[in-house]
């Protein structure tokens, strides 16, 4: 096999201009904005809010991990998964069972949850991602259905429909993370790590390859990109992140029950990706805000809740097909419009 050095370099004679395109600046901005965003969230448990408010913050961050990771898989890489809540649940039950049933140190639940979800994604992804088309959507749909049955039926492990009880809280020595305020910093840290990891990923060589695959797999392959390999990496990585979110969920609620991880939350997560903004980094934050906040705000409407939620979602996607993040973009464009 010929080495790349044998190849003709069409621009060998052209020197590197060394200038930066606008993209470089935008990327720097995204990183600082993300840092500010997380720093602003950190004091939530310190202001003497009640447990309910802090739990909203925890839920928001867990949902953020879920929606941001799904956005990278679906928005940036173009692979439709209808089983993200399944990986979330797998992580939750893996961590919960480790802690409640096996009696090992509950901290081990976090890496085990990531690992279990990642392994499941590997098993599904290897056959489903080899082909172009919607095989992954079908496979993940089936996977989630199977998991929903298992969570419900393996009563001796999962507690069945009554839910998994007896999950032991995480502890740092004698400091037990048993309240929402105490577990918040851990969830915050995990969410921040995930969000920075995803930002770094999408802005890299790997991220460009992923986005290329989403637009044209044929063109990506013609440039030497192994589409199968990258699709599998993204699928496994994002599944591990959903598993991590599950372990954080079970450790902050000390409970898990099957309905949180069924088909319906999987579909809602997909809807939140679209609502926030397909393949827009900030879209996941908006999606997570709505996913966390809307049920609370619409509580007074009781049965009409889902109806209002659904109508609102349709309205947004009708007027802003790019999602809520696109609304922000149009404001920026309006602000930066040429003025007389």
């Amino acid at each position, binding site marked *: 096999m010929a080495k790349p050095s044998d*190849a003709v370099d069409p621009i060998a004679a052209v020197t590197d201009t060394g200038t930066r395109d606008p993209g470089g600046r935008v990327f720097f901005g995204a990183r600082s904005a993300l840092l500010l965003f997380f720093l602003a969230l950190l004091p939530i448990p310190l202001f003497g809010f009640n447990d309910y408010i802090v739990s909203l913050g925890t839920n928001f961050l867990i949902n953020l991990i879920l929606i941001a990771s799904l956005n990278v898989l679906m928005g940036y890489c173009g692979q439709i998964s209808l089983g993200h809540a399944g990986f979330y649940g797998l992580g939750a039950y893996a961590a919960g069972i480790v802690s409640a049933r096996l009696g090992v140190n509950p901290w081990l639940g976090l890496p085990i949850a990531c690992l279990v979800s990642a392994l499941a994604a590997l098993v599904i992804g290897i056959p489903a991602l080899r082909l172009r088309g919607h095989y992954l959507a079908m496979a993940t749909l089936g996977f989630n259905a199977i998991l929903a049955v298992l969570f419900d039926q393996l009563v001796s492990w999962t507690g069945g429909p009554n839910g998994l009880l007896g999950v032991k809280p995480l502890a740092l020595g004698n400091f037990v993370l048993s309240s929402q305020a105490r577990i918040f910093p851990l969830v915050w840290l995990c969410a921040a790590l995930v969000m920075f990891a995803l930002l770094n990923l999408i802005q890299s060589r790997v991220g460009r390859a992923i986005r290329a695959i989403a637009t044209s797999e044929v063109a990506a392959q013609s*440039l030497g990109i*192994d589409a199968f390999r990258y699709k599998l990496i993204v699928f496994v990585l994002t599944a591990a992140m959903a598993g991590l979110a599950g372990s954080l969920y079970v450790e902050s609620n000390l409970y898990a029950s099957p309905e949180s991880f069924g088909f319906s939350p999987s579909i809602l997560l997909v809807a939140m990706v679209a609502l926030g903004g397909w393949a827009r980094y900030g879209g996941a934050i908006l999606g997570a805000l709505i996913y966390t906040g809307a049920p609370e705000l619409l509580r007074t409407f009781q049965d009409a809740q889902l109806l209002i939620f659904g109508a609102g979602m349709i309205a947004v996607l009708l007027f802003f097909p790019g999602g809520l993040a696109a609304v922000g973009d149009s404001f920026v464009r309006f602000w930066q419009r040429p003025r007389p």
Partner: protein
Amino acid sequence: MSETPPTLLDVRGLACRFGGLQAVADLDFAVRAGEIKAIIGPNGAGKTTLFNMISGVIAPSAGQILLSGEPIDRLPAFQRARRGLGRTFQNLQIFREMTVLENVMVGCHTRSHCGTAQAILRTSSARSEEHAIRGRSQALLARVGLSERAGEPAGSLSFGDSKLLEIARALAASPRLLLLDEPAAGTSHDAALRVGELIRELNRDGLTVLLVEHNMGLVMDVSHSILVLDHGRKIAEGRPAAVRDDPAVLAAYLGEDDDA
């Protein structure tokens, strides 16, 4: 060319059948290192099918494809690209959501090494490689004349500019053989002249080019040799002047059915 340069691409007995349609039949030809070879033929002659077989988009029903003497016909498309095969597409396949510059940066994929873990950790080697890729891509955009559009979404480019972007993107991988599928189709006369000039320049720098094109002016102008296909079969091959006067070629183009 006084002494014969080595064969870069060798196609032997290549055939492709779609159900009852024989798109390419028993085709033999070679591309010598350093030459510009054009493939012409009426619509449906099998030119794009041939490109798709060489680049690995579709599998041939029979035959062999050798790049520098190595068989590549069993390799997936991305492996062929890594062995030095670059291509553009007749129906544009640019990454519309990315910027013009990012499109070319994707083309640098095989020439860079940053893996997933390094990307996530944003290591210093990943960042310096990123800087190098960006500089290289800007230089390539300058070469095809798209520097001013670097930061714009690729979807906003005109058809002709998109064709140029595809060439820059393919060049980013430093191919040994570049397959150009109708680089001047649907572009203005001036743009076609620019494409011709670009092909000649790239060839002068040592790039071997296999070209499918309907613009006869461009083909006659740049090619060292021409292969004529009709109904998936080779009906003529040779220097431009010889091919132009070949009766079989005239018959194929003018639609005269020779009942021989």
